């Protein structure tokens, strides 16, 4: 079996979680079947201007740390073909100046002419590749699989979703022979919001990176530190974090809050923190890399993700596998299959504050959640995700 994967980004050139997913999942799948991964050839130009630099810590995005690993392994004279365990096929999109939506447009159009070299199946990821997938399906009469990592409804946090993107999403989901959703939560969203029959939707949870699964046990002496780590954007609920932080400090003075990551709400969130929290009780870190992230996870008493709508939430698994208790919203997809996390409604900042204080104050809660969380997170491997994805390819 050979699969043509219509991707968007790959380490070391990417800005978001899609690249990590593509890299990890298809590295595993390529041990079982032939895999061709298509990505646009963007040259040095990339979304959010963050990539066109050399290999240093400014390199981009909250997930920047994955890049260095790949980069360093292959040296500065890296070769794509040499490194990846699957075939990478660059698609020329002929853009001289980078504009995200324009690049998406050109990339999808390029699939009018591309030959998929005998692939039996086409697999694409999120709306940015859906139209290419539909074309391939029609031109080569192969089944179309689409993975929904997030929907426009998630990304907009329910506020002003862009209709034209939702239309593309809907077309892709309709044309797809089978849909992979990253959680039951997302599956429900696809059924309820996009009106897709549930029979053709399969849930495959993401894995957590290997380096997170191989960490030594941590200790549970309280540091009094509580972590927010992720993009600072409406979808992830940073305002609820600050609100809960303020309530937690009222109940238990002395807790310190660390807000790691960047995003469109960074300044707003800073302003909010300034007015709601004592000055010495919080810190914004900006971008952080792998080592910093690990250090933060492992030196915090708790990790909080009050996401308004989070299709999966890989940071929850990273936190758990680091041994750090996670407090998450009920609207965080990965939570549906986790026992060893504390869950609250994203708006219920009283409850979130209570959980924060409970974890800081009661060592028994901290260490039990931490230790059980490590064990539970270990089941989320990319190998398992690949096995389940293969089952979806083979199902009728």
């Amino acid at each position, binding site marked *: 079996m050979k699969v043509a994967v219509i991707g968007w980004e790959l380490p070391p050139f990417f800005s978001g979680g899609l690249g990590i997913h593509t890299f990890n999942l298809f590295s595993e799948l390529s041990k079982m079947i032939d895999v061709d991964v298509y990505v646009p050839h963007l040259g040095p130009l990339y979304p959010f201007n963050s990539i066109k630099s050399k290999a240093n810590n400014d390199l981009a995005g909250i997930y920047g740390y994955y890049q260095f690993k790949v980069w360093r392994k292959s040296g500065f004279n890296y070769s794509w073909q040499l490194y990846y365990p699957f075939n990478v096929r660059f698609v020329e999109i002929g853009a001289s100046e980078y504009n995200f939506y324009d690049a998406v447009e050109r990339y999808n159009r390029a699939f009018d002419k591309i030959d998929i070299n005998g692939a039996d199946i086409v697999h694409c990821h999120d709306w940015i590749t859906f139209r290419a997938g539909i074309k391939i399906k029609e031109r080569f009469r192969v089944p179309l699989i689409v993975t929904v990592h997030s929907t426009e409804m998630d990304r907009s946090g329910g506020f002003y979703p862009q209709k034209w993107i939702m239309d593309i999403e809907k077309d892709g989901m309709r044309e797809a022979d089978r849909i992979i959703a990253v959680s039951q939560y997302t599956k429900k969203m696809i059924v309820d919001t996009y009106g897709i029959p549930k029979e053709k939707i399969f849930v495959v949870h993401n894995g957590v990176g290997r380096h997170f699964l191989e960490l030594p046990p941590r200790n549970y002496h309280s540091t009094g530190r509580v972590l927010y780590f992720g993009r600072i954007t409406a979808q992830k609920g940073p305002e609820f974090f600050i609100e809960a932080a303020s309530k937690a400090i009222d109940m238990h003075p002395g807790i310190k809050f660390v807000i790691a990551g960047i995003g469109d709400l960074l300044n707003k969130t800073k302003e909010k923190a300034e007015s709601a929290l004592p000055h010495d009780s919080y810190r914004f870190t900006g971008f952080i890399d792998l080592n910093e992230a690990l250090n933060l996870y492992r030196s915090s008493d708790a990790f909080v993700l009050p996401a308004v709508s989070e299709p999966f939430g890989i940071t929850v698994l990273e936190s758990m596998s680091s041994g750090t208790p996670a407090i998450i919203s009920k609207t965080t997809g990965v939570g549906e299959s986790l026992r060893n996390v504390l869950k609250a409604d994203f708006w219920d900042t009283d409850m979130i504050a209570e959980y924060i204080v409970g974890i800081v104050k009661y060592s*028994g809660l901290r260490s039990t959640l931490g230790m059980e969380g490590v064990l539970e997170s270990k089941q989320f491997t990319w190998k398992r995700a690949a096995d389940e994805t293969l089952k979806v390819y083979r199902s009728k």
Partner: protein
Amino acid sequence: MNTIAIFLEVHQPRRLRRYSMKEIGHSHSYFWDEKNYEIMQRVTKKCYVPALKVFMESGVKASVSLSGTFMEQAKEYAPESIDEFKSYFKSGLSEAVAETYYHSLASIWNESEFAEQVKQQVSALKREFGVKPESFRNTELIYSDKIADAVKSMGFKRVLAEGTDYIISRHSPNYIYRAKSGISLFLRNYRLSDDISFRFSNWEWPEYPLTADKYARWISETPGNIANLFMDFETFGEHQVAETGIFEFVRALPKELKGRGIEMVTLEEADRMFEKSQTISVPEITSWADTRRDLSPWLGNEMQKQAFSELKRIDKKDHVWRSLQTSDHLYYMSTGTSQDITVHEYFNPYKSPYYAFLSFMNVMQDIKMQ
């Protein structure tokens, strides 16, 4: 075997409501009255009353223990269940068995507290039912030589324990033994007990459906003197709901047993019938819970240990403190092993061990402040 001794544990804890941190120092009402009422009502209607009626109509003999926290709540929320137990004791089919009033873990940490709670339980049984127990069954069959010593010194003649794999590898559970303290020791036959309490309605069990005829045959074909069938009373109508056919099974059982010459007896009757030729020593604590049959369902993780040590430290000797000692509170905090987790979740009104812990700890902070 031509004798069976059925023993049934009747217990309901006073469950704690979700008590938040902000209430500490302000609210001193801890118990989840609505939930406790609802559960007592439901179990009375589905289980206690119909099961006791079936027992009496068809002549099923069983020894029973009723925890103090059950009796209190039954009187308050569903007095008809108390009436039904009264009739059962009067019918001569049942023997009352003692335990701690609070269904607590007092036996493992404080001998005088243990004795006090047993005393309370014995007087409650006398007050409510006019019965005086001579047999003792500790919380969830928690047992050791040391506990048997304490039980003997309180004047009991016989004690119940789990027939763990380790013990039954050398001593069949189908005889009566002597505890190291000298009192009679009954070991639970967990296979035959679980056939009813766990497997009765399990479609995947090769023996499904279990009929009274088949079950009586198994007993008659098993070597030994006596089948000790110990389980939750709530097996009949609550864990195994009426729709599973459990009541039909119970109704048919006395006839099937009789047809094979098998007699149903109380613990006291059994004790008189059989020789106790061997003494069994159980130095380590055992119980009937989970797959490990030890204390891990209550003290297996750090939360449970912290909650338990806080509880011990408070040492207030009043009704509220003792109600918090009910072992179920700790059981709800269990993170368990994967085999046991379904059972734990079935019993957990908070759905998560972490929420159970938080409420419990918050309540204890409030008690400490008073």
